[in-house]
């Protein structure tokens, strides 16, 4: 589930990132717009030329105004005009002054137009050696504002703006977070459900909320898979059940023919062969049945206190008493501490596991071998070790045997379970007891299987 959490964390961070990016973009755009507007409009403002105009109007010694060359042309080009007022408010110089404007101004007039407009003409004033230079632009060409604000008001305004900005950011981030949490809450059970289904376990998600439809379908899928699995396990169980009686009859008669001393030796050998193969078939069927039942959790575990040493003794004795052939030799050893150690387990299944391991060594070493069974108390738990000095297996086969994939999935379409069904069963039983199983082998170096059960 780590990946899901990571996904939502990433999602949340990316949303916040998007907002930050969005803000930055706006700031950049705003400033570039300001720069663009300023750059494209400055040439038209007469402000630049007011100083020039001021400098280009001079008075000679005789009291006549002279203007620099081209002033009137420049003014005309810009639809502008200029005049100079003396201290009394009388126009003593003008160039292009519109006729509708008066030629005399009171102090009040001057105060008004220097701030605002003169008869709708935007005007600019400068001090001139001879009086007050007034330059007027075209009507509607300039916007004039006059600000006078309290300083603390400005400060508060700026602080307020910052606060508004910050609040906005926080609210947006919180909303994104809440939204993400909401989606996460709705989606996580679904993802968990998918994970559960992929493990082949049944799911049951609550079928309400906005995504109830998906939950319902997931539940359906889980139930469907479970039904199929159960059907398969039941089918295997049914087949193995039906095979039992015929096999009993076969084994029974073959065993009797084998023991019938009136028969020729060759016939008895053949009967022995039938009996042995019949026994193989018997263990194959019960392994297949049990492994499918364990796989689909249909096998109830009868957990009780189990002393592994005694259990192993009984299993080994069954082999020794059951007519083990001369070429096989089973040794048993247990250390002192393990004697009194018990685990919680299913006795019948554990016996089956150990029996399978010993049987495995016998079946795969027809030339005979020595098998050692030892029970030892270790740090990690109680270990059951089955070692033989027989043919061993190749690295490739060992990998196949120890591969930890889902058991029945590993079979191909033809249900090819020739390889190590017995070993698979041992692994399942060990796992059902929360234990671990390791195998070591090399060709001609024997096979060593270690089962460790936590105490």
């Amino acid at each position: 589930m780590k990946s899901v959490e990571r996904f939502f964390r990433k999602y949340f961070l990316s949303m916040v990132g998007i907002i930050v990016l969005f803000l930055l973009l706006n700031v950049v755009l705003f400033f570039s717009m300001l720069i663009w507007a300023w750059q494209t409009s400055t040439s038209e403002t007469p402000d630049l030329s007011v100083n020039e105009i001021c400098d280009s109007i001079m008075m000679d010694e005789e009291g006549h105004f002279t203007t620099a060359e081209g002033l009137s042309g420049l003014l005309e080009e810009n639809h502008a005009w200029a005049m100079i007022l003396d201290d009394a408010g009388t126009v003593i110089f003008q160039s292009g002054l519109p006729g509708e404007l008066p030629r005399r101004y009171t102090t009040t007039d001057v105060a008004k137009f220097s701030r605002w407009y003169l008869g709708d003409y935007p005007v600019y004033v400068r001090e001139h050696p001879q009086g007050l230079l007034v330059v007027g632009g075209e009507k509607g060409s300039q916007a004039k504002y006059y600000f006078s604000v309290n300083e603390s008001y400005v400060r508060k305004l700026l602080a307020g703006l910052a606060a508004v900005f910050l609040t906005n950011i926080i609210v947006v981030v919180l909303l994104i977070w809440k939204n993400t949490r909401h989606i996460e809450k709705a989606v996580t059970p679904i993802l968990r459900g998918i994970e559960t289904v992929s493990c082949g376990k049944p799911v049951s998600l609550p079928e309400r909320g906005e995504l109830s439809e998906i939950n319902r379908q997931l539940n359906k899928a889980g139930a469907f898979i479970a039904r199929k699995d159960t059907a398969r396990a039941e089918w295997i169980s049914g087949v193995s059940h039906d095979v039992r009686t015929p096999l009993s009859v076969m084994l029974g008669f073959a065993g009797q023919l084998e023991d019938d001393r009136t028969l020729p030796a060759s016939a008895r050998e053949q009967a022995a062969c039938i009996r042995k193969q019949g026994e193989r078939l018997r263990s194959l069927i019960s392994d297949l049945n049990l492994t499918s039942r364990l796989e689909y959790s249909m096998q109830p575990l009868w957990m009780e206190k189990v002393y592994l040493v005694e259990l192993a003794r009984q299993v080994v004795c069954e082999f020794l008493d059951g007519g083990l052939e001369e070429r096989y030799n089973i040794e048993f050893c247990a250390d002192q501490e393990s004697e009194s150690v018990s685990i919680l387990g299913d006795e019948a299944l554990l016996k089956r596991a150990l029996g399978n391991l010993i049987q495995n060594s016998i079946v795969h070493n027809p030339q005979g071998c020595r098998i050692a069974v030892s029970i030892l108390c270790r740090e990690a738990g109680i270990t059951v070790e089955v070692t033989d000095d027989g043919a061993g297996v190749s690295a490739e086969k060992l990998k196949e045997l120890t591969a930890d994939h889902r058991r029945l999935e590993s079979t191909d379409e033809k249900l090819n379970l020739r390889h190590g069904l017995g070993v698979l069963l041992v692994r399942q039983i060990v796992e059902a007891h929360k234990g671990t199983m390791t195998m070591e082998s090399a060709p001609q170096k024997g096979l060593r299987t270690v089962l460790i059960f936590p105490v």
Partner: protein
Amino acid sequence: MLDKEILVVDDEKDLRTMIRSIFESAGYTQITTAVSGEEALALIAKKIPGIIILDVMMPGMDGFELLQEIRAVSKVPVLMLTAKGEDEDRFAGFELGADDYLVKPFLPKEFLLRVQAILKRAYPEKNRIVTLDAAAVDLDRAEVIKEGQRIPLTAKEYSIFEKLSENAGRIVTIGVLCQTLCGDIWQGYETTLMTHIRHLREKIEENPSKPVSLLTVKGLGYKLAVKEQEK
């Protein structure tokens, strides 16, 4: 033992034939068969057999129902044959009073061993004398007869010996013997067991340090070698 009447109840003809032939080749003489629960009940009503071999899965009255009917009238030993392994009825028959059960498919040897064990338990022999290499043991009187002398066995020695002789020729594990000695909580009694075994050997072996009858199977348990003449 061989003259005990045996009733085999199974709907499968071949299985009945097979079981009959297992018994016959083992020397049993009184074997009757029934194909259904109803037929079996009719036979039992006439005469109660020495042991009944009962298949669980039968059309009509199944093995469990039949067992209940039988238990209503008799305590005759019953061995049940079941085709279901390792699962649900592990083993429902015990509650109903079956003496033992065997999962199909079984081997003739295994089958005979179970039947013999049940018969031994159900019909203990009189004058049970176990003949060993250097001595004989009178189980009824708990005495060892060695070189004409009668040596009594202690209660513990007797229980160990009885267990070993019941399983003569087979290994009896240390755990099983300790359990016989001190009940279900037996861990830690291994040395006590060894002491009793030593005493037992002193009584039954000619040379206790080189036992030939009560054999040690290293790490596993003990085995009693019995002379075959015992009847």
